[in-house]
């Protein structure tokens, strides 16, 4: 007899779970980490809104998540999410974005959201390449990588997205790879509860496009094992020299500061001040 089993996260989906990503994509691991974090927190999914841009990461929430989802232009998800959060400060607004979304076309919005410390959670899927458009070099692609637009090898140094977030003033920053799915889930849960701007970078495999660049074409398992071997915790990394850290992926929770005022709270303060001045 055939038994029909429902996925334990089915209730979070708008109809059938129907992801259109390539086999082996890291999106599924990240999507589960987000939803398991919400499940663990036992929070009302209706109080969450997801905003995403263009690129494979945009399709993590859109249209799949069965809550309010806004799928917008490339690179601008944070800017739309900022307006939404300011208008609905009680909502938990989560942005999913890619590395190109975050650090190329949307770099300006990214650093300013960090600076403003607006209470958004940003989950950045860093697959180190432009996947959807055909494997072009990204600002996060390692030096000397051969991509579809760098046939001689890339000559620009990559960004460290988590370090940018820290420098720009984000008050919670963590990085994991898709191999550390449990740690990722825990950090996402923390980020959701964090009052200010939280940035979670996930190094995620794109076996189709980036796999090709590093000689692991269509081999997601090999890419995950590579993440496992190269990951080093931030605690351990602090004791090592830059030479020893070469080729390593530093993972962990980098900063968490709940003291800096959050933007929507600051706006509430301004309204009170403006009102009391009016009454005088």
């Amino acid at each position, binding site marked *: 007899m055939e038994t029909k089993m429902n996925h334990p996260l089915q209730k979070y989906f*708008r*109809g059938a779970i129907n992801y259109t990503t390539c086999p082996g994509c890291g999106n599924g691991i990240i999507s589960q980490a987000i939803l398991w974090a919400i499940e663990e927190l036992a929070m009302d999914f*209706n*109080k969450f*809104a997801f*905003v995403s841009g263009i690129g494979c990461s945009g399709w993590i929430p*859109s*249209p799949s998540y*069965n*809550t*309010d*989802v*806004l*799928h*917008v*232009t490339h690179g*601008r998800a944070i*800017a*739309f*999410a*900022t*307006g*939404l*959060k*300011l*208008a*609905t400060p*009680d*909502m938990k607004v989560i942005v999913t974005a890619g590395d190109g979304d975050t650090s190329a076309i949307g770099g*300006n*919005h990214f650093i*300013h959201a960090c600076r403003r410390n607006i209470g958004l959670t940003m989950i950045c899927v860093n697959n180190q390449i432009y996947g959807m458009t055909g494997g072009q070099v990204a600002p996060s692609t390692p030096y000397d990588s051969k991509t579809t637009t760098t046939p001689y090898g890339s000559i620009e140094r990559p960004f460290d997205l988590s370090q940018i977030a820290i420098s720009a003033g984000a008050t919670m920053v963590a990085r994991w790879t898709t191999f550390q799915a449990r740690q990722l889930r825990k950090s996402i849960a923390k980020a959701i509860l964090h009052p200010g701007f939280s940035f979670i970078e996930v190094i995620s495999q794109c076996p189709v496009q980036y796999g090709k660049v590093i000689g692991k074409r269509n081999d997601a398992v090999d890419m995950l094992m590579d993440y496992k071997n190269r990951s080093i915790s931030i605690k351990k990394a602090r004791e090592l020299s830059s030479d020893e850290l070469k080729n390593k992926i530093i993972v962990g929770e980098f900063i968490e500061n709940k003291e800096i005022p959050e933007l929507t709270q600051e*706006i509430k303060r*301004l*309204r009170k*001040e*403006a*009102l009391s001045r*009016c009454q005088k």
Partner: protein
Amino acid sequence: MTNNSKIHKTDFLQGNIACAEGAIMAGCKFFAGYPITPASEIAHHLSKRMFEVDGTFIQTEDEIAAVANIIGASWGGAKSMTATSGPGISLMQENIGLAVATETPCVIINVQRGAPSTGSPSVHLQGDILQSKFGSQGDYQVIALAPASPQEMFDFTIKAFNLAEQFRTPVFILSDSLVGHMREKVAFPLQEELVISERKKLDHYQGIHQKIFLDEDVAPMPIFGKGLKANITGSTHKEDGFRNVSDPKIMDHAIKKLTNKILKHKKEIIEINEYETDDAEVVIFSYGLTSRAVLETVRKARRSGIKVGSFRPITVWPFPEEEVEKLSRKVKIIIVCENNLGQLFPFVKSAACEHCKVISLPPKILGTLYDPEEIFEKAKEVI
């Protein structure tokens, strides 16, 4: 109530400030903007006033973010607005297209300045008329109103919010640096005179295929945070918001429904001011600030016994094609006066078909006021 309370409150206001106050009166609760001459006074004023009315003001990192912010806020249920000039509109275009495609009510003030490029920030030009209609990719419709005075900056801003709410679409105010910066008397409406529209909202969740888009009579909007499970995308979608980017039939349907949502309601949207057109042989077509010089010309011509009239669209977009066609059947000549090299001229000519002659008369020096005399001379010459 005493009779005194029926008297309109008046103030001597700059156009940009009148616009900001009009926005507040219309119920605007969210303003996002980036500094730019000659629109900045709107932001200055609202940076103080928004908080007094329990609203939000944010100065964004650029104009791309400003328009993205107001779209996001609109989905959060707030009436929202941004104000900029041509260079800012250029940056906003991609997201304006998203506002059209996702049927997001919002108001965009363009205090036009000298162009192209950086141009002349404090020179008034009507240079962005086509930009506001055709600047984003694809076929789409917008609504745009052209004010000529601080009073109209106030009144049209309220009207812009009302149209945005009624038709779930971005609405432009096409002002210019002179209208934005001039100071004149502005009369505020009495509470009972004020007409304020509110968007049709989805009141309860109706399942994953609930119809929230692509209704020519405007679908209800699922405001975020109310458990309505809004499914919103700038990609081609169906009535329920589900994306389909491969079937041309679905794209065809989406484009036509979006376009018809505005065009089907043209009669409700379009407003024209006609002056002395009943028996006119020559009619001058103008909009915005230019229409003030035209009115003076008409009065002057009538005093000399020359039958000249004025046709002024308040609504520049959608273009009043049928109204111009009707006009062209009863006059000999239409002179198109715009403070540019003739941006609406081809539209007037096309609407007039071959019924009458249509000529373009830009001001002698672009960016300066028309001398009513130069329009008068032209009218005399062609009659």
